[in-house]
């Protein structure tokens, strides 16, 4: 997308959401939903709309784990690393995923198919280990099932 097209889209998002109290997070979420990440060109547009400095907007983007500054792979796989999942073998699930993708946390497989993210609890702690694939939760994912899921994602 061209720079002006990004700016036009982001301006539109800002105009639609600027009415509320403390609109920056909803705006950033809408921008990320649109582009898959927060493009650098979006920052000055948002800053101008909300009367903030570009650095302030950047500071907010960098604070939150959900916001990405570069695009992710075609699929985002999030594996719960928290305690209840560990009690049921999540460490092995994560190790299998890292080995299969040949990446560490936050990495994207060389073919661009999968970005691997840690998550700390999905609220599925009674059917652990839990993972989320592109927003869809899957329970009781052991190492073998993880590998199968990644294959389905084209990794």
């Amino acid at each position: 997308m061209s720079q002006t097209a990004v700016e036009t889209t982001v301006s539109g998002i800002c105009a639609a959401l600027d009415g509320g109290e403390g609109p920056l997070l909803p705006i950033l979420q809408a921008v990320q939903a649109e582009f898959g990440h927060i493009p650098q060109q979006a920052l000055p547009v948002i800053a101008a709309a909300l009367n903030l400095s570009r650095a302030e907007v950047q500071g907010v983007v960098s604070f939150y784990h959900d916001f990405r500054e570069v695009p992710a792979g075609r699929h985002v796989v999030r594996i719960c690393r928290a305690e209840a999942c560990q009690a049921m073998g999540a460490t092995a699930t994560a190790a299998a995923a890292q080995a299969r993708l040949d990446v560490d946390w936050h990495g994207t497989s060389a073919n661009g198919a999968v970005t691997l993210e840690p998550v700390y609890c999905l609220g599925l702690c009674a059917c652990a280990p839990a993972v989320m694939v592109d927003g869809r939760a899957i329970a009781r994912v052991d190492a073998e099932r993880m590998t199968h899921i990644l294959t389905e994602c084209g990794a």
Partner: protein
Amino acid sequence: MKVYVPRDAAARALGADAVVAAILREAAARGIAVELVRNGSRGMVWLEPLVEVQTAAGRTGFGPMTVADVAGLFGDIATHPKALGLVAELPWMKRQTRLTFARVGVTDPLSLAEYEAQGGLAGLRRALGMTGAQIVAEVTESGLRGRGGAGFPTGVKWATVLGAQAAQKYIVCNADEGDSGTFADRMLMEGDPICLIEGMVIAGLAVGATRGYVYLRSEYPDAIATLTEAVRIARAAGVLGAQVLGHGPAFDIEIRVGAGAYVCGEETSLLNSLEGKRGVVRAKPPLPALEGFMGKPTVVNNVISLATVPVILARGAAFYRDFGLGRSRGTIPLQIAGNVQFGGLFEAAFGLSLGEIVNDIAGGTATGRPVKAVQVGGPLGAYFVPAQFDTPFGYEEFDGAGGLIGHAGIVVFDDSTDMLGMARFAMEFCAVESCGKCTPCRIGAVRGVETIDRIRAGEAGAIALLTDLCETMRDGSLCALGGFTPYPVMSALTHFPEEFGTRQEAAE
């Protein structure tokens, strides 16, 4: 034929949607009309997807269901291999005292008519005839304490906001539910979202607030969708809007989605986040009750605290207060998770012993191995060992035993668990999630990971260092993230010193 298949995220993660598709396919093939309800979960997660079929005797359960089990639902259901009998008669259900979760799993979460038929809106109707001070007094007398972790008396907090003078006040619902091993907020929002809405409206009437926000974590897409729809329904029916139920003052709710920061569950960090800022913790005072969202008086309460208010108003403070133990009044939705045979949500009066919960209700470990440790209260909660299993579930009782109940998550580990690894994880988590405001937390947690690695490498002298570090974090942190991370670390060290100290000798 009336069939219930939960819409709950756990049920869906275990295949409920495929079971629904199979039921509809099978019914169409047989020319049978099916009335399908996507209810919440009953909380018996080991039986999910738990399908219920309405029979003359009551709702009969089948679970855990697979697609292959579906055809059998259309035959002689008494001999179905997954038949469980009447769901309401199952021991797990019968042993509970379901006050906050009375409708969860029972009703269609998005039917306002069913909500009312099952006791909903009675609390709000009563509250509409009371003064703010009377509502606050009722909640205070019920003994309700915050279920988000700190256990602060809800009525006392409300009284502060009621007493504050301001043109605008707010009700903020903390639905960040970041604690690992917890899912009560999620289940309530997915299974009975109107109950949370009713609780927030009552809170608004009590303190004179007209605007409510729900700060809901992004990890819960199903809860976001269900609550959003419930707010729309409540607005359309006049439960929310310019005049609550046609004659009350105004109250409306907006849902805001979090952005993946654990610390934003801390109330002042949450308020900064709602305002569109970095989720850095604010120093107190000022209390959020006096200077909260946008600097205005604000009630910040957990989902379960707010969703418990309707039953208190409907049935009276004394009814609720009569359950419980010591200063822990009423009921608590226990969330039983990790390595257990029977995991899920179990609402009971305070006072069950930890051993009763782990061995009896949860049925011990899923792996069949002995229980080694139980972490209670999320990632900042202490590890308990079987020798402490007589500890009764209550705020003061757990505090006295060197722990906390937090949001009432109970995570069970078997004897294969590496406790040094769990201590290391606690420090790592603190380092990842620290808001960065204070040095003992920001730097201390990173040092903690390094120090535990040195202990792992056999440097027994590093144990004293770890103990010192924990003391510094406990005494020098602004909030409980840095301040309570020492709980899991030190409890692991105290109960399992051999896993921290004997490696050197073993290696020599």
